[in-house]
């Protein structure tokens, strides 16, 4: 394997880590609250802007702003769930889809109104720095983003596996009615799950800011990738989101290298298409074609 190819693979996996974190939020919200949050990408956009402005106005490095944005987005997610989705919990699926799409429109247009359509990027201390052995140098921000994303996912996995609240989140995702009968306040669990899912995407926004520019529709691209990953990994599966993220990161990097990066979306969607035909439950999915 040539040096370049190795670098391509590493970069793909690193990007896959961030994709995984974004997808984890989406899959958690879907798996527990049963809401397909189309506005997930707009949450990412908002957190990128938040991180951008914190840097521009007060010089707070995006890696530091994670500490502010993570809790902020937890609360933001809870407010969205409480204010928008909880009132239509028992409404038909279509209403939930339209509520989510409505949220997309509102958030995108608010961003356009306040911050115009310009691409905005920042130059932090870590931008442009490289690490690694001679010949295999990789960008430091990508490396940090990957490490942070993986640690957050591990932490979340531990939380879901071992705490009462974590188990209640899983139980609610598996059988909401039975969870109610076990004394679990499922509405509260929905709020928490929505909060955690939003927090994940909020953190991902901060981690992306040193390597990517922000603009009002930046979320649309990432959310498409996230949907492919979530379906690939299996709807509602956290492990699936992680593995799926890495796979898509890799596919993206390799298709950019061998074919052309302009076709990378086409390549995901060919994968997506085959997946829907041959394995609609995804790699680790148990939620069948609901």
């Amino acid at each position, binding site marked *: 394997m040539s040096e370049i190819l190795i670098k391509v693979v590493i970069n793909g996996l690193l990007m896959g880590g961030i994709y995984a974190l974004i997808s984890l939020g989406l899959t958690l919200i879907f798996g527990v609250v049963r809401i397909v949050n189309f506005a997930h990408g707009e949450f990412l956009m908002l957190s990128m802007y938040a991180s951008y402005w914190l840097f521009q106005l007060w010089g707070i490095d995006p890696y530091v702003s994670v500490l502010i944005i993570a809790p902020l987005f937890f609360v933001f997610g809870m407010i969205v769930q409480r204010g928008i989705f909880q009132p239509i919990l028992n409404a038909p699926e279509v209403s939930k889809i339209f509520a989510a799409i409505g949220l997309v429109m509102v958030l995108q247009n608010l961003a356009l109104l306040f911050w115009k359509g310009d691409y905005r990027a920042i130059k932090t201390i870590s931008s442009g720095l490289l690490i690694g052995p001679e010949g295999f140098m990789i960008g430091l921000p990508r490396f940090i983003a990957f490490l942070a994303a993986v640690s957050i996912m591990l932490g979340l996995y531990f939380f879901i596996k071992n705490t009462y609240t974590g188990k209640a989140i899983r139980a609610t995702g598996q059988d909401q*009615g039975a969870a109610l009968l076990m004394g679990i306040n499922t509405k509260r669990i929905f709020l928490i799950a929505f909060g955690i899912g939003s927090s994940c995407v909020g953190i991902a926004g901060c981690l992306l800011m040193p390597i990517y520019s922000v603009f009002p529709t930046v979320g649309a691209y990432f959310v498409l990738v996230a949907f492919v990953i979530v379906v690939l990994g299996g709807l509602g599966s956290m492990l699936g989101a992680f593995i799926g993220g890495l796979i898509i990161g890799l596919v993206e990097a390799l298709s950019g290298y061998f074919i052309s990066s302009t076709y990378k979306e086409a390549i995901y969607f060919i994968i997506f298409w085959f997946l829907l035909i041959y394995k609609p439950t995804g790699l680790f999915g148990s939620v069948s074609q609901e």
Partner: protein
Amino acid sequence: MLEVKGIGVFYGEVQVLWEISLKVGEGEIVSIVGSNAAGKTTTLNTISGILRPTSGEIFFEGIRLDRETPDRIVERGLVQIPEGRRLFPEMTVLENLEIGTYPQRARGKRDQTLKKILDLFPILSDRKKQLASSLSGGQQQMLAIGRGLMAQPRLLMLDEPSLGLAPLIVKKTFEIIKDIRSQGTTILLVEQNVMHSLQIADRGYVLENGRIVLENTGKALLEDKNLKKAYLGN
């Protein structure tokens, strides 16, 4: 202990329960029997707070329940084991039991209760690490009962615990229910298996088309001519 006073319940526009009144005294086994769609599960779900009655009242130890949320009701010690087990399929046997102690009042004694339940159902102890979905029907019912007991119920409601089980396991299930009562938990049992459930019941209610049509001691109901004709086939 539990007193249901004239509740009426609707599914949307359709009334499914009319004027249901029943009592369960401390330490009793009370059975509600009746055919499919008579309203048995609806009655239990209304007591559990999943459904709201449009009329009538429910009291548990003198406290009004029919305006409370399901989690608050469980916290008071009124626990339902739902029809069809409803285990968490992607969780292990142990995790299913642990989630049973979710109510605050049950958490403190978690390890103690767990030991008691694993002694009661040794088969669960052998399969602790397995996924709940990998168990046989009978084992799943044991797990469902174990999970309910982990919540330290004062009154345990069981919805069709014998449904879909082999005759030998059915017998065992009813024996376990008797055991649970003898250890101090009051039982409200809903069953289509009229014979078995009235045999172990102190008192019984017969539900038909959303109304209570008969109530008596378990023994007297077993002797009842109309009931025999309708449910026992002789």
